């Protein structure tokens, strides 16, 4: 083996070591939730064990009994998909305007969008409650659809704006020469080029909506058929004990995390796709 090969081997080994390190860091608490979800209620108070002593499926049975959890999963999937699609459409429109078009008030509007993230959700909860009531959306998934942009839109707009800005100016000039209107340039040329950013922000928006708790609790808790997953889990009552049903909550956590992991697996290739097409060269 030459020295160069040896060095490459060593670099490979180091890389895999780092990968394993990241995996353990990210997964250990998840592993713990996984293990806990198979434990009995009694075991929670004994010295922690790396594997359940008497593995049981009763926590999962509890989660799926009654079918309300499946309904919550469906609600969450609907609300989060709709919210992230809306964030991507409205966000990419706004980002194109803020990142590529010249007009007065551009910088001020960037701050206006950012200002949506400058107060805790609790600050506007009662104000939002009034508005959701006035719109007649209280107790329906629509209440979440109108309120979730408050956290999905600002970062979608900002991330996409910075991506649009990063694209070379020659693209638009070439498109204008070819007779594209500005909107055509946006839809046919710039948007495909920002695919990695679109997928990234779409995923982040989806996860944020999927995990949102405060609005969901206040606007849908009264209507069991509109509850989302975090609310359904929080409303688990300890049927098997007076204690907080931690093992059941962990079983539910397993169930809700799997769709998200699948989603990332499906979309992760797209994160790298974009600029490799060579569209920028030449």
């Amino acid at each position, binding site marked *: 083996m030459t020295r160069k090969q040896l060095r490459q081997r060593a670099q490979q080994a180091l890389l895999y070591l780092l990968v394993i390190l990241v995996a353990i860091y990210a997964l250990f608490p998840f592993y713990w939730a996984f293990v806990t979800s198979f434990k009995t209620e009694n075991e929670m108070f004994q010295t922690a064990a790396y594997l359940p002593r008497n593995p049981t499926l009763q926590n999962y049975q509890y989660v799926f009994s009654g079918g309300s959890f499946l309904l919550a999963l469906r609600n969450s999937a609907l609300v989060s998909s709709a919210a992230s699609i809306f964030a991507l459409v409205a966000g990419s429109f706004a980002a194109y305007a803020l990142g590529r078009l010249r007009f007065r008030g551009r910088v001020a509007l960037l701050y206006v*969008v950012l200002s949506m993230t400058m107060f805790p959700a609790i600050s506007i909860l009662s104000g939002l409650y009034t508005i959701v009531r006035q719109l*007649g959306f209280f107790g329906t998934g629509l209440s979440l659809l109108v309120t979730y942009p408050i956290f999905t839109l600002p970062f979608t707009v900002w991330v996409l704006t910075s991506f649009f800005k990063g694209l070379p100016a020659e693209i638009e000039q070439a498109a204008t020469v070819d007779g594209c209107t500005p909107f055509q340039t946006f839809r046919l040329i710039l948007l495909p080029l920002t695919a990695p950013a679109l997928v990234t922000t779409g995923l982040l928006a989806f996860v944020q909506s999927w995990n949102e708790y405060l609005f969901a609790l206040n606007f849908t808790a009264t209507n069991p058929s509109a509850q989302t997953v975090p609310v359904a889990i929080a409303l688990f009552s300890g049927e098997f004990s007076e204690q907080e049903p931690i093992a059941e909550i962990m079983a539910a956590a397993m169930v809700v995390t799997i769709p998200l992991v699948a989603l990332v697996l499906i979309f992760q290739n797209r994160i790298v796709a974009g600029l490799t097409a060579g569209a920028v060269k030449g």
Partner: protein
Amino acid sequence: MLSTAQSPPNRNRIMLLSAAMMLIGVLGIVFFFASVANDAAIQFVLNWTPSESGEQAPSLLLVFLERVGIIVSILVVSAGIFFVVIGWRLRLGAIRVAYWARIGLIWLGLGASAFIALEIFNSFNSAAMDKEAVDFPALVSTVLPALMLALFAFALWRWLSNNLEVIFSGEDSLLGRETRLAWNLLIPTLTIFVLVAARPLEQTFIRSLTDKRFAGSAVPQFVGLDNYVNLLTIRLDTVDCKKSISDGPCDTRANGSIRWESIDRELLREGFRTIFNLRLGDQSLAISGLDDDFIEAISTTVIFTVISVALELLIGLFMALVVNSKFRGRGAMRAVMLVPWAIPTVISARLWELMLKDTSAGIFNKILLDLGAIEAPLAWLSDPALQIPTAIIVDVWKTAPFMALLLLAGLQTIPSDLYEAASVDGANPVRRFFNITLPLLRPAIAIALIFRTLDALRVFDLFNVLFGRQQLSMATYNFETLVSNQQDGYASAISVIIFIFISIFAFMYVRLFNVES
């Protein structure tokens, strides 16, 4: 030149359109104020007669601000003025103005259509909830005018679109075209902004000037800036240390810290509490405030934010670089990396609560005991000295993936030929990182930092689940005043201060990274 381009029939059409636009604007403003005056709550105040029970009269201004507000009024009036001005300037037949008229008409039509959809949805929804038949006469009476307005706007828009270039003439600049497109594209975002951010925040601001109780029936009254004064008053006093023997050394506590005299009794009676003693020789500077919990919550939150965001950036960058290199199972690894972020905070906070139990039933203590790193289990969640570090550990674990994903997307925009060129020139990986990766990643880092910092300053779920009232962040303090103490007015003032505080942070950040240019 304009007059030669306008034949008499075109001139008449322009005058009609101009008149229609101005009419829409004026009628819109008139209709808005008429419906405000007819609002049930405002009518109630106008017709209010003092009863014998001696209740205070509700403030008309307060009710108006609660029901309608300044932002909506300004928007409606400026939309009306927009129509009038555009209508007036249309007379000259310039094509630039006609384009703007078209934008006004299409959004008017869309707005009216949205209103119709909302009304129909509402009446069917409420009928379904009360299990009654839909009240069609009432529905028609509200929907019909809106429907006529929508049809009128769409018809006018259609007609204008078809005839625009025939009737109107003149120069249109590229800048004008870009400005119009920009506003068209921004309207959905701005509508959402007004609806779910500006308007609720305005209500919070108004309430912060009152003594409103949460879920109370008492009529709120203006109290001026009292809430703010109470939250922000701070005074500095010098106090001596406690001495059990006069002229002897200062008394100390078991942990070696010096015991200080408390501030003046009179001040304690006024409500001042000491937050922090700054030692100056044998004396100390006592920093006291009327609301010591709030000042402490601010400092807790700032410490938490600075440390956790810094750690998240380092770990997130590390993760992004690792999953950006080529190795087998990279796709699966990207999913693995995101798992902490994918677990809802309400659940992951519970999970950490479980892992951090203060007995050997908590896995953290168990591992550390097994490794011999600690002698006895630590009380991660209840020991005040460990609470903030614990919160930081949990937050970093949860949100580093968010950072990593944003940075990973940023890494993708760096062309690989740059690295190849650098390798050919003999730059080692460390130099390539500092000379290529880091500078080109700057925009992505800036945005990730801004959003993470603003998120961390607003931290709520984590502190609420892990510590309850034991250790307060700004947002959980806000929550406690609102929900536990029912002080809506006071809680609103807290919200406004948090908003101003965070916006200063945001502004500095944006300036520092020069993101806007």
